[in-house]
């Protein structure tokens, strides 16, 4: 295992330390709990909080700041954070208008956030949760823990964060988040596995010419393992189930999000975007916004995911609204 780290036990801690040093104008560490907080979290807004295992950077810690998250709670690598983190973070940024937890659908995340919500509710703090589950790779979701939360989470955090920033009520912010989740679908693939530092070995093995279609962001196996294909065919394999699922229809206006898994060069992501754009054009689906880059990653994994979000006017406006976080920034 070759990594730029000092100590497998301290990867998350030291990385967070670097993050808040580099972005001290935007974020800070909670004094006791492992949570990243906005330095300027205003009172009189709904506090939007997310969290999950580490190893997906910039998500979530990189999305704390103006117009996005008020706090993020990072767990160990690929391991859900613990309830005390979310509880303390919520107490720190609670402005009185309530707390929204944006939770990715993983058993661990769900249970840990649920416990934190219970603890906060017990103190009379209004708290709501929205579970993001946009991964169409999960078939038979009735017989599983359900669809996983993947790329749609980044889009939800941006759009919902903007709504909270402009003063939306807890009810409004929550229902917008549910609307984003209802209109977003994703699927990913891996060219290579990744290695959790504490484990020291790749989470799975792929032959030198094999790829995994439908991978989760923790290297959970996907739908099929197959021989390497040209980008165009991979795009088709990812985008077809996405489009069919919602379904996205001719005339729909979408945000197309091509995400890298961490180790994929930007140049390849733009090739994927080029192919996706051709694919959607043929179907009459209109890309009116886009995001291309490494935004929800799996350590050094090579591969990509595609996320499509059907936009309405409010979502468009909120997507365009200013955002100022370490990982996503425009308009200010």
């Amino acid at each position, binding site marked *: 295992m070759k990594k730029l780290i000092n100590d497998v036990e301290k990867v998350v801690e030291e990385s967070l330390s670097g993050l808040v040093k580099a972005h001290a104008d935007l974020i800070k560490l909670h004094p006791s709990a492992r949570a990243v907080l906005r330095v300027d979290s205003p009172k009189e807004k709904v506090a939007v909080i997310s969290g999950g295992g580490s190893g997906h950077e910039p998500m979530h810690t990189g999305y704390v700041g103006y117009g996005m998250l008020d706090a993020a709670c990072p767990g160990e690598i690929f391991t859900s954070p613990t309830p005390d983190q979310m509880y303390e973070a919520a107490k720190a940024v609670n402005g009185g208008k309530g707390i929204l937890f944006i939770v990715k659908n993983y058993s661990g995340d769900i249970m840990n956030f649920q416990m934190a919500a219970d603890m906060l509710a017990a103190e009379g703090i209004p708290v709501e949760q929205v579970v993001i589950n946009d991964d169409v790779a999960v078939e038979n979701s009735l017989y599983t823990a359900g669809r996983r939360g993947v790329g749609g989470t980044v889009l939800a955090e941006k759009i919902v964060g903007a709504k909270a920033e402009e003063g939306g009520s807890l009810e409004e912010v929550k229902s917008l988040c549910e609307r984003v989740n209802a209109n977003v679908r994703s699927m990913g693939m891996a060219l290579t596995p990744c290695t959790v530092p504490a484990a020291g070995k790749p989470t799975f093995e792929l032959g030198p010419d094999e790829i995994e279609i439908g991978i*989760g962001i923790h290297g959970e196996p996907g739908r099929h393992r197959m021989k390497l294909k040209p980008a165009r065919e991979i795009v088709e394999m990812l985008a077809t189930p996405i489009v069919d699922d919602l379904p996205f229809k001719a005339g729909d206006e979408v945000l197309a999000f091509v995400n890298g898994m961490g180790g994929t060069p930007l140049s390849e992501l733009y090739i994927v975007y080029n192919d996706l754009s051709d694919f959607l054009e043929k179907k009459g689906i209109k890309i009116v916004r886009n995001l291309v880059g490494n935004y929800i990653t799996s350590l050094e994994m090579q591969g990509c995911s595609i996320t499509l979000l059907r936009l309405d006017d409010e979502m468009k406006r909120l997507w365009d609204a200013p955002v100022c976080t370490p990982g996503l920034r425009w308009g200010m």
Partner: protein
Amino acid sequence: MDNEHLDVTKAVAIVENIKEIIDANKEFLTKLDSAIGDADHGINMSRGFTKALEKVRNNQYNDIGAVFKDVAMTLMSTVGGAAGPLYGTFFMRASMKLAGQKEADLTLLAQAFREGLQGVVALGKAQLGDKTMVDALTPAIEALEAAAKQGLPLKEGLKRALDMAEKGMKDTIPLVARKGRASYLGERSAGHQDPGATSSYLILKAICEALGV
């Protein structure tokens, strides 16, 4: 020190032994989790019990419940993942049943563990056969209860529980997972032993060993 009761000293010894055995099986659990999960179960459990033991060692206890409550709180705030809240809840619910008790016999222990299991099921909503820790815990606790009903000695009850946990653990191998990360594998999860069921078996094994079973 009698053989029919769990007391505070033994409770602390249990925590020590769980930590030992989990550490010794850290790689094994992680390997099981890498086959059908995300390769962190051994790491998570080892981190949690290391911290739990630190906590327990630095405290003085007057009742067994307090020992398990500290274990529960520590697991809850250090394990993370799915196993953290589940084992946290297990020990928390068990500790509530044992609160104020200086010692526990087989009957009380069976009741406490039953409470723990109920907490796990309420939180995780797994049913028997979903290929989770519930598949090891359920038969084990049933065996404890049956032994208590028959008035068997504590050690005999634990021995039977351990056998049933082992069987439950091994029986997860052919199952298709329906809860937790492994469920994403669908049919591909069959043929692998569930990491959580395995850690549950190991915890019971550690309890047995600590009590000289």
